């Protein structure tokens, strides 16, 4: 059931975007960060806000300066993170952790712009870490993808992390 009530995207678009998400996950699992950046629009925004736990009936106002973020990145900031991971000095990633992403619940909607699409998905990141223990992070994602001459590229991603307390010592992974 499409929330927007407009005509569904073509099967070709749905298949293409779904394949794009799977491809992206495989690039990240293999730490092919530069190839992953090729999937981004130049004006990409990549955000994850902090979680909060509130009573449903709570009426307190939102935080004055802002909720705060885990990620609030543009292309340059994504590159900065990749520069750090590529530096050879990030000891928490050496030996490499075993990381596998599972992407599911893909739902494609029309966007306002003709050449764009809204894509909802769920990502599970399974990390078997250097200490031998496994951590699993789950998040929902709402993306805006834009069609370019060389295919769909990510224009915006809002990530909703499903953990009020991060069950790990770092987030050296992209969602």
């Amino acid at each position: 059931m499409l929330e927007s009530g407009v005509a569904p995207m073509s099967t070709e678009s749905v298949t293409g975007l779904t394949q794009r998400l799977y491809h992206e996950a495989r690039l990240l699992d293999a730490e092919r960060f530069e190839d992953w950046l090729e999937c981004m629009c130049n004006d990409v925004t990549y955000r994850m806000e902090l979680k909060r736990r509130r009573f449903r009936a709570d009426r307190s106002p939102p935080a004055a300066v802002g909720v705060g973020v885990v990620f609030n990145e543009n292309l340059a900031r994504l590159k900065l993170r990749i520069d750090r991971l590529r530096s050879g000095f990030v000891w928490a990633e050496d030996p490499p952790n075993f990381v596998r992403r599972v992407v599911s619940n893909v739902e494609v909607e029309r966007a306002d712009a003709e050449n764009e699409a809204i894509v909802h998905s769920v990502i599970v990141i399974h990390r078997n870490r250097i200490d031998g223990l496994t951590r699993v992070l789950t998040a929902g994602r709402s993306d805006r993808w834009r069609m370019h001459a060389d295919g769909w590229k990510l224009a915006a991603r809002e990530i909703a992390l499903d953990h009020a307390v991060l069950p790990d010592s770092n987030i050296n992974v992209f969602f």
Partner: protein
Amino acid sequence: MDVSGLVDTATGRQSRAIYSSEELYRQELERIFGRCWLFLVHTSQIPEAGDYFRTFMGEDDVIVIRQKDGTIKAFLNSCTHRGNRICRSDRGNAKAFTCNYHGWSFAPDGSLSAVPLEKEAYFGELDRSRLGLVPVAHVAEYKGLVFGCFDADPPSLEDYLGDAKFFLDVWLDAMPGGTSLVGETQKMVLASNWKLPVENVCGDGYHLGWAHAGAMRAVQSLDLAGLSVGNSSTDLDGGLSVAGLNGHMALTSLDGVSGYAFYPKPKPMLDYLEFNRPQVIERLGKVRGEQLWGSQINITIFPNLQFLPGLNWFRVYHPKGPGQIEQWTWAMVENDMPAEIQAAILDNQCLTFGLAGLFDNDDGDNLAACTEQSRGWRTAQMDVFTNMALNRSGPREGFPGDIAAGLVSEHNQRYFYRRWQEHMQADNWAGVPTYNINSVVAEETIDA
């Protein structure tokens, strides 16, 4: 348990058992977390009557509530009937707290205001006046920071903080508008003993150039202004390690701007510092106004509060057993800062020391492995060392404390473990020494 042989301050030695022993951990809950003043909340986080914030004192779950008269009270977050947790939200505003189990309801002042079937089932024999929420024995504020203490007879908060106030005021009282903590709480579980991150931040400038080498290189490639703290390029006299202040510490640079070196666009911050520096000098004197305000400063309030003017993060560590903590972080701002600077600080704090912090993400695994390597049958019998630059400290004109020159030293860590040992050996506050080494009379300051 006798801890006299577990820490040797004179030689800078600690037994690894202090990071892994369950018995010592229970003793810490009693003699450190059950005795010291512990940070609860910043007044900016609960501005209105009925605003509350949930936190921990040791492993005890606590609710801190702003009262109708503006004062702040803190209570154990536990129903006085069957012990259930009464508040399950991180923070918010409430007219009452109602227990999920049987519906007992408590007012923000802690009183038991309603009990279902009070007449029918208790026959009106329940003395509600004796069943209010259990208050934290003492709650006091120092310039926006609200602390609680379980001990019946502690020193006053002012005396507890002692000469550390000299450094606290560089953040809390530099500008007339005061300070705030902003953003939601950034919470992370670390498989670390609680002392290791405190030790790391209180004095360990040594690890910066190596543990954070990846982030340093990446960030500096963006051509940021200022501070260079790689192992080879650290200016050994560019800062001070200050300790001997009742277990509190400061690690500070002295240039008045380096705190903002890791900001991608530091210019608005530097302009703010320069514009306001004259009035800060008026308020705090020349030493603090010129050399400390704007500098990168690591401030530690024993046992588990640390905040860093400059990088602008504010953090407490809640112990969850000898080998686990929850690390809670907020961004902090001066209320006089323009909104765009406050927003930039929140963003930069999240980027550098948030849950995906470029720097913060380097520390967790080291601390966890140090903890793990203290747990084995053999390793638990071994020692670890904080013996860098022994006996090279002394007074420094204009500053309180026993001071070692430079940011790379293990001077502060030795005082941290000394305080730990003093508390662990003492049966009560009467047995805990008070010391503010090389106390200075604050420079003439002008009240705002």
